């Protein structure tokens, strides 16, 4: 919003009459503590924490749905769930886990870490950042409110049409799914624009792109994937919505429509989607492994470029989800080949991670264990994925539990393990206390055991012919044993997640009697570990100048002639002390993001139940946007600091400072 995000100061120092009248009716909120500070916050760290907390809440819901599935499939002819209810449960399980757990945890880390890792104070558009979060939360709650308002969506998370049309699914569940995901899609899109601009525009002096931590790189690629994939899903959802609510003919086969239209549009979104789910976890692991191997990441440029390659190639493989849909042998062959190729950049990453650990001084802390867990479990999932890429093999495997095994290995064994690693790693930075190490190790082994017990048998079940998405099975097919094992595993897995949550509360209560954790408890390498723990509101004071990759490490360690590491600076010398943050201006909090975000689910309820309600919601949204745009600028007593300082280091192709910088400097007040 150009009107207020980038305006120069309303008043110069000492001046009390602006030369133009700043807009705004209400003054901006000022709360910095308490629940009001969370509702109106625009601080990327608070927003990141809220994304994480919301994701864990939805994890409990999606996990409960998973346990229902496993309980139903414990024995043949289970009677816990009817067929209809089972359809709803597995649809909502998948939708919740993909859109309300894995993606938001990625967003949580991206929001919290990116400004810290690039040396900025906040993201490019702080209020839009807040809006993204509240929008996501509203969409997630809206989606799950379907349970109370007529039943959940029941077409599978991929919602194939015309099965998802009103004839075959007459309840409102799918409408809730549709609108809920359109709303979270808005959140994702705005978040993607925000973070891309942040990374491109707001890096600290000397922080060239090839000096950024790997997590920021992977998050940047993910944001580009999100930016381009979400609109494709949105167009599919618009078509479905028009069919369901207004009798359109997009998926009406009698009028010549093709079900494949949905499949293509959905999977053009769906395949980049899975890459954007895994890449942030890859990034976290790429930053964690070097710390606990006491070695820099092996092949930094290769990790970066393979991530970019995955981002590009991910757009050319979507129809491998459609091998048996009748697209014909030429298409199948082309997509089969493309899918095989995409294993290459991922393989490069795995080799680089192994090479990082090789010869390093390994410390098997909880984050390290979970990271190694990602590497091993994802490799297994990747191997089954490569099997699927061979189209004739996929013809046997598709729609069986073999596929279910594959994607749970890569998404749970991969993404989720990586995220838990990241949580153990970054917890002290965010909250000022460590999660208990022995509980963490127990957490890892229990999760590893439960996870493998749950999903490894599914490979066998799939190859034996057990179909996906069925609410029960008959005795005598040989499915009984492994289903029982999987169900036991699922409950162990649930226990391990509960242990993680317990660890949070336990460590928090213990933290009061422990010495405060310093800025750098892990002896880490990247600059976010320079700041006090928990991170102060202003992030850095002063903004550091970066001279190389892993800049922070080289503020602590030098190397002798025979390559021995020598630590020459203590934490007090290398890290930043807690200051009062005077002279640092942060963007002011704001009410409007949550107001606008609140209006969107009301529009959605209105579209389903009563158009008058949609009108009310629309007025809230439009009014909120105007309020937002008209809001008074930040406190004019302090100078602006929502741009990143200029990049002085030569980075090949850096743009020259435009003269705007000088004239802006004349306008901008400096703080004494």
């Amino acid at each position, binding site marked *: 919003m*150009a*009107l207020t*995000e*980038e305006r120069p100061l309303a008043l110069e120092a000492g001046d009390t009459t602006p*030369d133009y*009248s700043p*807009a705004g009716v209400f003054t901006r909120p000022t709360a910095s503590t308490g629940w009001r500070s969370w509702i109106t916050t625009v601080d990327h760290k608070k927003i990141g924490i809220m994304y994480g907390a919301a994701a864990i809440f939805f994890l409990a819901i999606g996990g409960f749905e998973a346990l229902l599935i496993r309980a139903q499939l414990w024995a043949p002819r289970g009677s816990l769930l009817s067929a209809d209810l089972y359809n709803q449960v597995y649809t909502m399980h998948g939708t919740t886990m993909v859109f309300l757990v894995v993606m938001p945890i990625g967003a949580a880390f991206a929001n919290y870490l990116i400004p810290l890792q690039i040396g900025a104070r906040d993201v490019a*558009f702080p209020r839009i950042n807040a809006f993204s979060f509240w929008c996501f939360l509203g969409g997630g709650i809206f989606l799950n409110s379907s349970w109370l308002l007529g039943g959940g969506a029941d077409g599978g998370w991929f919602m194939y049409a015309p099965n998802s049309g009103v004839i075959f699914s007459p309840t409102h569940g799918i409408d809730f799914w549709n609108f809920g995901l359109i709303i979270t899609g808005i959140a994702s*899109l705005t978040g*993607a*624009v*925000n973070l891309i*601009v942040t990374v*491109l*525009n*707001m*890096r*600290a*002096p000397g922080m060239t792109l090839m000096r950024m931590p790997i997590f920021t790189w992977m998050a940047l690629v993910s944001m580009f994937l999100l930016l*381009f*994939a979400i*609109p494709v899903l949105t167009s*599919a959802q*618009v*078509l479905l919505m*028009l069919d369901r609510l*207004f009798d*359109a*003919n*997009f998926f009406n086969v009698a*009028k*010549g*429509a093709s079900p494949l*239209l949905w499949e293509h*549009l959905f999977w053009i979104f769906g395949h980049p989607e899975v890459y954007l789910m895994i890449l942030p976890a890859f990034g976290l692991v790429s930053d964690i492994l070097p710390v606990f191997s006491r070695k820099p990441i092996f092949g930094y440029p290769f990790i970066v470029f393979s991530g970019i390659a995955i981002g590009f190639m991910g757009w050319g493989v979507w129809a491998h989800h459609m091998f048996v849909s009748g697209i014909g042998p030429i298409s199948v062959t082309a997509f089969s080949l493309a899918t095989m190729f995409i294993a290459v950049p991922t393989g490069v990453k795995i080799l680089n991670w192994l090479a990082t650990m090789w010869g390093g001084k390994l410390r098997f802390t909880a984050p390290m264990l979970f990271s190694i867990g990602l590497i091993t479990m994802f490799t297994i999932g990747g191997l089954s994925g490569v099997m699927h890429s061979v189209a004739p093999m996929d013809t046997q495997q598709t729609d069986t539990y073999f596929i279910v095994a594959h994607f749970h290995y890569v998404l749970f064994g991969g993404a989720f393990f990586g995220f838990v690693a990241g949580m153990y790693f970054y917890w002290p930075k965010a909250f000022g206390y460590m999660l208990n190490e022995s509980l963490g190790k127990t957490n890892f082994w229990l999760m590893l055991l439960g996870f493998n017990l749950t999903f490894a048998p599914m490979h066998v079940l799939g190859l034996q012919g057990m179909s996906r998405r069925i609410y029960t099975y008959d005795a005598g097919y040989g499915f009984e044993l492994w289903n029982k094992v999987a169900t036991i595993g699922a409950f162990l897995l649930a226990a391990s997640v509960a242990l993680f949550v317990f660890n949070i509360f336990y460590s928090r209560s213990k933290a009061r009697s422990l010495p405060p954790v310093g800025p750098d408890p892990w002896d880490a390498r990247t600059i976010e570990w320079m700041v006090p723990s928990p991170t102060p509101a202003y992030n850095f004071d*002063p903004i*550091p*100048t970066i*001279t*190389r990759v892993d800049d922070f490490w*080289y503020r602590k*360690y*030098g*190397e*002798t002639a025979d390559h021995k590491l*020598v630590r020459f600076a203590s934490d007090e010398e290398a890290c930043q002390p807690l200051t009062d943050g005077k002279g*640092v201006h942060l963007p002011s909090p704001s009410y409007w993001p949550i107001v606008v975000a609140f209006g969107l689910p009301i529009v959605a309820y209105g579209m389903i139940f009563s158009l008058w309600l949609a009108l009310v919601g629309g007025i809230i949204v439009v009014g909120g946007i105007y309020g937002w*745009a008209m809001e008074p600028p930040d406190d004019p007593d302090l100078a*602006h*600091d929502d*741009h990143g300082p*200029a990049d002085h280091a030569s980075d090949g192709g850096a*743009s*020259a*400072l*435009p003269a705007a910088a000088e004239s802006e*400097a004349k306008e*901008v007040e*400096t*703080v004494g």
Partner: protein
Amino acid sequence: MAETLTSRPTLESADAHAPHAHIEHDTNTGISNTKLGMWLFLASECLLFGGLITTYLLYKNPLEGPTPHEIYDIPFTSTSSFVLLMSSLTMVLAVSAIERAEHQRMRVWLTATALLGGTFIAGQIYEFTVFVREGLGFTTSRFSSAFYTLTGFHGVHVTVGIIMLVSLIVLSLRGKLPEHRSETVEIVGLYWHFVDVVWVVIFAIVYLIP
């Protein structure tokens, strides 16, 4: 340090200090955050309209009801297209005007743009009502659904653009749009030109291609 270290450690004195960093008040790319953000958004919109255009291409031959070339009024739509094209000109002249601090002239051009956009929308509405009268309802066929959705979506985008233009005019009249905020007008202009460019594509692919 007892031994000389070969890899030069980073010196803290090289760090920027807060008041100093203030003067270096710039973005790494040299482009403002908002402008960069708008271009990213426009790039993503290509995917959105692409999906709807592709749907149209797949469904343009209906199984029942009027076919495209029975129903289109090319002379009328050509005039509409011309109107929208000229609105791009008036838009860019408005941006040019505010960059020269000619606020009244900018308001004139913005008003012209909004009026031309409004004319386009009126033309669309008229066209739709004629089509409905001639038997092409939203639910008539796969072609009709695809056509109305694509052009309707575009029309909504134009309408949002008109609202933004009017907002700019009002802001300017109330003295809240000084020339150093000209980028705001430029960014609304980017959106407007994009909407025009999408129509260039729609006009060719939907209306003209036989």
